[in-house]
């Protein structure tokens, strides 16, 4: 009877942990898919799209997660295949310096103008 109890506990623990790992993978998969642009239905993420390309990418992402690839590695793989544009969240590189730095520059410029005006009034 004792052995049976231990067996049941072990069985449920291993099953629960398996369920958890599946859930974690699903959350990661959905996060990645929402950040990939569909090249057929442009303007939609792969997560939202039902195109053939999207369904293939869903399979590829699932396969890569099961192979043990991390989020960044999957993005890198897709970038190598389809270019930077396929990822919604652009990386900082020579093509995106303006995109990343312009808002910061405008913010600093605006701050400087306001600061100068306030000082002037005083």
């Amino acid at each position: 009877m004792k052995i049976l109890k231990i067996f049941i506990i072990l069985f449920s623990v291993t099953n629960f942990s398996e369920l958890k790992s599946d859930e974690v993978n699903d959350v990661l998969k959905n996060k990645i898919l929402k950040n990939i642009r569909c090249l057929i239905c442009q303007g939609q993420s792969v997560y939202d799209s039902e195109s053939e390309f999207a369904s293939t990418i869903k399979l590829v992402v699932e396969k890569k997660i099961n192979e043990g690839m991390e989020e960044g590695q999957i993005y890198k793989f897709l970038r190598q295949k389809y270019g930077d544009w396929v990822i919604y969240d652009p990386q900082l590189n020579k093509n995106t310096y303006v995109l990343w730095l312009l808002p910061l520059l405008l913010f600093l410029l605006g701050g400087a103008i306001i600061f100068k005006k306030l000082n002037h009034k005083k």
Partner: protein
Amino acid sequence: MKNKFSLFVVVIFLSFCFVIFYKGLNTPNNYTPKVNEKKNIPTFKAKDFYSNNYVNSDNIFEENTFYIVNIWASWCVPCRTEHPLLMQLSKNQSIKLIGLNYRDNFNNAKKFIDDFGNPYSRILIDKDGTLGVEFGAYGVPETFLIDKNKNIIKKFVGPINQEIVNEIKLIIK
């Protein structure tokens, strides 16, 4: 002096906006991945269409030979348009054609080849489309030209035409 400077800044800003919008008018809205980027061929394992055995990419592509990898399917109408051109290319001794049968039914694909002819030296099965992703494909048909050093040197999205065939012939000459 201050007014002149403000006017100058406004004019520069408006010109900048005009150039950006004007350039935007002439560029297509749809993004297409780069087609002339040199890439190594991916390493993969795929099922052979006729023998059903798994083959490694290293055993498919030999050095010192030009290859064409053509992604096709029996259900794809543009594939029928380009098929005679692939048949024409297959007669050229300096190039080998590899077919990637994309998300297809075996019997339909076999009928397609029996009806229209087989331009391929080998056909691989891409049942779920994931092999196409390894090549950077996002639709069907797509054609990749591979040089003697096993690099993908050109990618043609959509059906190939006579102009593309001439271009390929010129490269492999």
